[in-house]
């Protein structure tokens, strides 16, 4: 199926047998409405934001034990010795769509945003987006415009920070050892 007429289309990718349609964040609602009405994607299955902070830099992925981590490009490093392809912005927000019909076609709509930018809400296209967008805000700090009830979903209302961001420490709460005092 061709996606050239999707509003705000940036590019279309085919990887691992999955189609990714990258659209401009500002035209997300138009693109989603188009995909629902013209292509028949009647179900929003999932919204998955991903943080790419530190993507492709040493010390992020690799052996846990050293201070710098493991440089994938150093000689003697086994495995896939390539830097991953750079990403356009810090966050990607993926909307996984499914059409309830023969062949179960799926498509992933992807938008890219930086820390200060917001994505428009697709709640009026698929009502199920409600909690998924709240989760994206709660866990990853993706601001959603025009959402009528954008509150924290899983964390406490007064929680600080966004736990699934890469700069959020594992554990998240400061640990105080008795010997420090």
């Amino acid at each position: 199926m061709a996606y050239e007429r999707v509003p705000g289309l940036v590019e279309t990718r085919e990887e691992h047998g999955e189609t990714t349609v990258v659209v401009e964040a500002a035209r997300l609602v138009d693109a989603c409405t188009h995909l629902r009405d013209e292509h028949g994607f009647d179900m929003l299955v999932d919204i998955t934001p991903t943080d790419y902070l530190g993507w492709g830099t040493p010390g992020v992925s690799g052996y846990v034990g050293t201070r710098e981590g493991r440089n994938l490009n150093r000689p003697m490093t086994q495995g896939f010795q390539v830097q991953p392809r750079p990403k356009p912005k810090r966050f990607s927000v993926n909307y996984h769509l499914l059409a309830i019909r023969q062949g179960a076609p799926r498509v992933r709509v992807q938008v890219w945003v930086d820390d200060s930018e917001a994505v428009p809400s697709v709640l009026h296209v698929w009502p199920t987006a409600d909690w998924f967008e709240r989760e994206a805000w709660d866990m990853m700090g993706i601001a959603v415009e025009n959402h009528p009830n954008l509150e924290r979903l899983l964390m406490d209302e007064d929680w600080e920070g966004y736990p699934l961001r890469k700069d959020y420490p594992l554990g998240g709460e400061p640990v105080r050892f008795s010997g420090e005092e």
Partner: protein
Amino acid sequence: MAVVERRGTKDPIYDGSRIPAPVPTVLPVDPAQRESGDVLTVNFGPNHPSTHGVLRLEVDLDGEVVVGINAKVGYVHTGFEKNMEQKTWWKAITYAPRIDYLAYQNNELVFVLAIEKLLGLEVPPKATWMRMLLAELNRIHSHLVWLGTSALEIGAISMFWYTFRERDMVLDLSELVAGYRMHTRYFQTGGLAEDVPVGFYPECRRFVEWMPKAIDDYDALLARNEIWEGRTRGLGLLNRADAIALGQTGPVLRASGVDWDLRRDDPYLYYDRTHFHVPVLPNGDTYDRYRVRVEEMRTSVDLVEQCLDRLERMEGEPFITDDRKVVLPPREELHTSMESLIHHFKIVTEGYRVPEGEVYLAVESARGELGCYVVSDGGPRPWRVKFRAPSFAALEATATMVQQHYVADLIAIVGSLDTVMGEVDR
């Protein structure tokens, strides 16, 4: 796909949409009714025996009638996805089954399948059939727990003893095959962690012969039980359009008359090589959701039998792929082969590396579409793991389904969604 006509009548479950506005998951109280002063706000949960885990419902009651509801989740949020980013790929598999502690095998399956998709691994047929068999056994297990506890909440206490008797048989089979009763971590990247033990097939055959009789027992207890029907029929309605708009999947969707099952419509493993019946019912009420699950148990027993027919002829075939960059070498080789020792050491300490990429993979869990979105940067640890939990979407439908029902029915209706809070909060 085809929509099944309603029994007897051809009218839809209800016209139009009942999804509340402006927030689809919050049922607001009519301001005029609030002014009259008769509305009482009751806090329901988070620790309430009938909430199936730690779920809190803020319910607005007018007398005994629900006029407003707001579900609060997050009480068992443990940060599985964050933890999995810190572990190597093969260690992260351990986390997946704990997310949904009733359909644990399906969670394990979807994560392993996602890794294999990124790696482009071929899995031996024996491992694939065995995965199918365990996934179906696990579906029976999950439905049994649901049936027992939901019936218990409505007052049919004896059901609980019957279903937990068969649940124990499934757990015994789990223990036989993997050594653990739950959270087995038996699925390994590339196949199975160990070969199928001697004696498993005959035991499983015995279960397959027993189970249909047990399901007949459940039917005898509940299907035409007047109290059960009174408590479930026509309650918690959800029509086809609303179910799809609210992202419902699995038994909830099929009970609303949508003929949709990923095992048949988007086949994974070897489901396209088997024949099975997908139960679909048209009324969209609590009773139909119960019927769909019971019928699905029969389907699963049938599928287990079909898997057994294949597996019994596969004695001695490999249970895991021999790609030594990903799969641990056999234990006995470690004493004789330096190469095997190195591979073993590398995989255990550093983990294998998975090529860069992103995949989304979905399987039909006991609760519906269980998806796993995985991003790799080419390193030995996942960059991002996100589970699409069917219970998460199911809970969003609460506000649509409980409108103008009694608070006693609220328990039955929320129970009929079969939510596992571990999966909702992750």
